């Protein structure tokens, strides 16, 4: 059982921006279980429910990898209530 977590990414809307974020999350070993998007002033905010595919995948490293994307302004993570297999 690997616990699902929320990760919220605030970013500048632009062509490819969502694809970059979602693609990176999946490519770096996290299963995407939910997704919601909202406007946040000049930025967009994408909230993802993610679960690591194995114990070697670390959310704090994913956080840093997301911050590395051009146009990403901030990333925050929080545990999700409950767990998923």
């Amino acid at each position: 059982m690997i616990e699902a977590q929320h990760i919220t990414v605030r970013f500048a809307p632009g062509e490819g921006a969502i694809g970059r974020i979602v693609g990176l999350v999946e490519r770096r070993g996290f299963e995407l279980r939910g997704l919601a998007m909202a406007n946040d002033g000049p930025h967009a905010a994408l909230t993802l429910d993610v679960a690591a595919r194995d114990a070697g995948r670390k959310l704090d490293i994913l956080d840093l990898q997301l911050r590395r994307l051009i146009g990403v302004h901030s990333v925050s993570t929080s545990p999700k209530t409950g767990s998923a297999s």
Partner: protein
Amino acid sequence: MTIAAPRLTDASTAPQPAPLSGARLVVQALEREGVTHIFGYPGGAIMPVYDALPGSSLIHILVRHEQAAALAADAYGRVTGRPGVCLATSGPGATNLVTGIANAFLDSVPMVAITGQVATHLIGTDAFQEVDIFAITLPIVKHSFVIRDTADIPRVFAEAFDIARSGRPGPVLIDLPKDITIQSASVEPWTIPARATEPLDEQAIAAANALISRARAPLLYFGGGIAIARAEDALRSFARRTRMPSVGTLKGLGAIPTDDPAFLGMLGMHGSKAANIAIDNADLLICVGARFDDRATGKLDSFAPNAKVIHIDGDPAEIGKLRRPEVALAGDLNLILDALTAFPAKADPWRNQCAAQKEQWAQSYDAPGNGVYAPALLKTLSERAGDKAIFTCDVGQHQMWVAQHCRFTRPQAHLTSAGLGTMGYGIPAGMGALIAEPDATVITVSGDGSIMMNIQELATLRRYRLPLKILLLDNSQLGMVRQWQELFFDENFSEIDLSDNPDFAEVARSFGIEAFTVDHRSQVDGAIDRLLATSGPVLCHVRIDPRANVWPLVPPNKSNVEMMESRW
């Protein structure tokens, strides 16, 4: 760690007096960035840009396959530190760039790749030569743009170059719909954000200095991040003042000269025994600009089992990714290394032990027989080529032999496809290196498998009279695959036979390239003389023993200390 908010600075030029076509704006943007050479291949959607090239200051190198354009741009970027530029048309032109873009991405090389695209109104209609190269390359670029408005061209190009070369460098793709390059626009002033500088983490510096001063067996483990940060001087100064033994990754080779007495060699799968044993015995590992890559670490949980780790990197996302360090230092490698002033005063026995093991386990070159022994040939060639040499490699056994047996006094002297492992990198990389540094003695070491991947570029060498020296080590097999099948697949040799290779010397001559073949040890000295003395492009075809293996070798999923060894 805090990162200051970006600050806007005026980086614009004065508005143009009259509207210009998008293609002219592209050319102007490249000139403004100081680009002198572009590697490319024309085609339908990019034709307006090609129409604007004549009369500009840009020199276009017409390759014979777009993959070579990207790989040459990659090498140019590695040597100069400035983004290499490649240019291709839409559809297959763009997809042919993909391997080269991925190569640059995995090795953090600054590159700007420009692709033509079908006209805006045709995008998404499956038009002729339409592919979504923007989407195809999303996982292998640092960033990418589709330009939707001609007036955006100058700003987007400025941003693309800034992104490609800043921080951890990487490739940036610009997709240019054809109509955007045909339409005209006036240039508006634009701004690009200034880069924030990382303040030194003084607390972490103090913690690192404390670990260094207490260490009895400290070891410096450096990688390609040194070249990216142009931090060779800082690294060498640190190594000198701490008198610390060091090991390097494939990409790090040359950051500390390979003949430095305290340098123990490359670590990892084909690393030296002295390097891998030192890693195992170290009580402190100072990792600088390296990322605990699986080829370097072997089985990760048994890598440096007794060591505390100080991890220093320009990219915070690399720290802790695979090994949690005791001290993390992200930022400018030069500043961080200069701040590490502690001296490991109790490490003399360790220094002596490392030096003795380096001598004890040094490579022998007196292989039996009369055939050409590739490691000895490479060692001699490298010594005679001197400090102005740049070696570019293909991928396979020869690539590892170059890393093991050639001497490098700077990281830019060793251009190798480390992350992606791209067969076919060698000759295009040699072209890029020669354009970047025309006075260098550029030597491509290739294999008979790899050379066929981009052999068409012999025509480019001939066209531009690029004096590339190609050393082709021919064992008539896919040697590294054969070695693995021999050792780990019960000698079940499957699809590795290349005994129907063409006569490579004849092939080279048919392209107008001087070429000759050697197959006996007694011919080696003369071959090196001729290779180095030839003023134009030249290919030296060397037949080697097909049973030759690369040693040592760490088997898959094994610890580095479980390396397999054999003398020959």
